[in-house]
């Protein structure tokens, strides 16, 4: 039985199926290769271990060489407390969640509506809109940051009302809403949806708006989850744009808050404690949404 399972697993192997491993030379290659890859995996995760280690070491030990740390190792959790008191982490978390949450909610609504329109309703000037959207994918955010900053400083729509949006949540949220990539992912999903769904709903007497909100959105729940998680991670991790448009501590996102701590020149164990605190949501999120994140990353890359 076990053997059978082994052979079934073997179906997907290219280089080292069972019959190849009987060869001594191949087995050597397989084992050495495996050791290198496993060592690489450990090295990849070493920085996180070092981060935790620095955070829990007492002040006197962090500058000691590795051998000394190993000999008189002791745990001191006070740096976490100091780091928590050093900066308003609760506020930073709140800001980050608020910004990322509203950007994601807005993005999904806007992109799903636009994609449904482009996919099933074919609005006038369809080709022009598609070309314009496609062009924005190629443009890196750094190149439009300067005019966006000026626009946020003197925010006005057709000169009607003038506002200074710097240091407000709006400045952090609004530019994030323009993400053409989401529209294309949604569109490719809607293109695969059979029109029969919509026809059937129409026959059942649903209005066009109802069809979108009560048929299409519930159907596309899986794609919405993937897009939401990925965009949440992106916005959560973003640093460049918050750095430009905020300079008041009460509006800092988590990433900016962490950056300001290191800029102040705090001791390394406190900085590492702060970094560890900032990593908690990422690790938790990865544990809960590992499958969706990996699937989403694959999906979005292969869409390009």
């Amino acid at each position, binding site marked *: 039985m076990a053997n059978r399972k082994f052979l079934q697993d073997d179906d997907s192997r*290219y280089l080292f199926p069972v019959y190849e491993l009987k060869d001594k030379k191949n087995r050597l290659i397989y084992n050495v290769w495996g050791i290198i890859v496993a060592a690489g995996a450990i090295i990849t995760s070493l920085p996180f271990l070092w981060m935790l280690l620095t955070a829990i070491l007492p002040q006197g030990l962090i500058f000691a060489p590795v051998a000394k740390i190993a000999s008189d190792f002791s745990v001191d959790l006070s740096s976490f407390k100091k780091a928590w008191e050093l900066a308003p982490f609760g506020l930073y978390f709140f800001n980050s969640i608020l910004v990322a949450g509203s950007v994601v909610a807005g993005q999904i609504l806007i992109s799903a*509506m636009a994609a449904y*329109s482009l996919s099933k309703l074919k609005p006038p000037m369809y080709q022009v809109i598609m070309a314009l959207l496609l062009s924005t994918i190629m443009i890196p955010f*750094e190149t439009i940051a*300067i005019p966006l900053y000026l626009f946020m400083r003197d925010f006005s729509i057709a000169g009607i009302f003038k506002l200074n949006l710097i240091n407000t949540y709006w400045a952090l949220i*609004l530019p994030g809403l323009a993400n053409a990539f989401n529209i294309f992912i949604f569109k490719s999903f809607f293109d695969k949806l059979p029109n029969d769904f919509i026809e059937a709903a129409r026959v059942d007497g649903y209005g066009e708006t109802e069809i979108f909100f009560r048929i299409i959105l519930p159907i596309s729940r899986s794609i919405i989850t993937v897009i939401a998680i990925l965009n949440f991670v992106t916005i959560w991790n973003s640093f460049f744009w918050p750095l430009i448009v905020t300079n008041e501590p009460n509006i800092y996102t988590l990433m900016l808050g962490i950056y300001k701590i290191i800029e102040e020149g705090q001791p*390394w164990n406190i900085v590492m404690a702060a970094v560890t605190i900032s990593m908690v949501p990422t690790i938790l999120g*990865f544990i809960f949404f590992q499958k969706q994140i990996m699937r989403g990353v694959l999906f979005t890359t292969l869409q390009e």
Partner: protein
Amino acid sequence: MSDDIFGKVGNELSENAISGMVEEELRSHKKEDASLPIIKLKLAPTAESVVDIAKRREKREKSQVSGFQSLSSSNLAKVNLVNVIKLPDTLSQTQKLKKVFRYRRYGMQMRDVPQLRRESKPLPERRKQDFGKLRRYRAQKKRLGLGLIMPAMIIFLLFSWMPIFKTFSIAFQKFQTINSAEYVGLSNFLNILSDAKFWDACLHSGILSAIVIVLGTWLPLFLALYIYEARHGSSLMKVLYFIPFLTPAVPAAILWKWMYNQGFGVINSLLSLFTPGHQVAIGWLTNPHLVLLSIAIVFIWKNTGWAILIYMAGLQNIPKNLFEDAALNGASVASKIKNIILPSLVPVIMAVVFIQIINGMQVFSEVYIMTNGGPVGSSEVIATYMYKKAFLYMDIGYASGVAVFFLFLLVTITLFRMNLSNARKAAK
């Protein structure tokens, strides 16, 4: 089918049978032209005779006496007989018809004559209000289409398209203060072209991308090939490599800055273990020759897991039988990789290369936090240079000029990639 039967049995048809047939035809066609199928009959009745038959039939129905019924005098028998004769369902349509004709010949009347054709329903008439409905429906669809795309259009207009045009227009201006700008023509661009620092930044971005192409493409492939084959811990290794990809750039950069620390960093400290009696003090971030490599290592550390994921998805699509053939021919591992895996993975490798280049050109947070362009500008990349020009020196026009260059560079790379992939598709 019915025409066939008429052709076959036509010779033997008695008058009675013909009348029955015509009756059926009349019944099935109703208002339609009854003469059409009858034209094929050998004993084609004329129009008058059809009318004749119809008259005769009326007469017969009036008298209520016909054929076999007339033989039996009792009313009871008549009623029963008519109801009793039924055709079994197992018979084919043709057989049923033959039977019906045979019985008719002896004057028996059949109740359940199989219907040859379905009654054709008339098409629904096109009414004026239906056209109105269609027009209203189309208008609603169009209105909804516009309405749904409007928010996206407004957002993109304000935060994507307008800024692009503004980048170009600002690049032709000089800002004295942030509020007063004057048009200075091409002078920004000319200044940029003769600015050694800008070209240094471009060079550094190029070097960074080159390192990323070499290490960030082939290292993940090497790892992915094994992880795909691995019998133990394949998913654990994948996860371990993938976690840095999700790590935000800021904590990652701070962490690596601490690890790279010249005097107390863990990397130098670990390296010292191999050189007893001698303290290793490599200036990972302070040595101008090493700093770009150090930054590239962080970038690769962050993106390896992502590339492994992509490669593993690509590996799944290679047909298995290629490897079976190769094994039968005694191919070695190296030749399998060289002759099967690499050629089939070309599109995936190209995608990874280009995405890594584009991301590598745009790298900002790592450089800004770890070195801030130092030491003496030896790690300045285009993004940090632009940021400093715009928001530290407040030279917004100049920074926009840099942005325009940057934009052209990246769009060129993207278009090059599109061309390559199109050419590959065309070659197939």
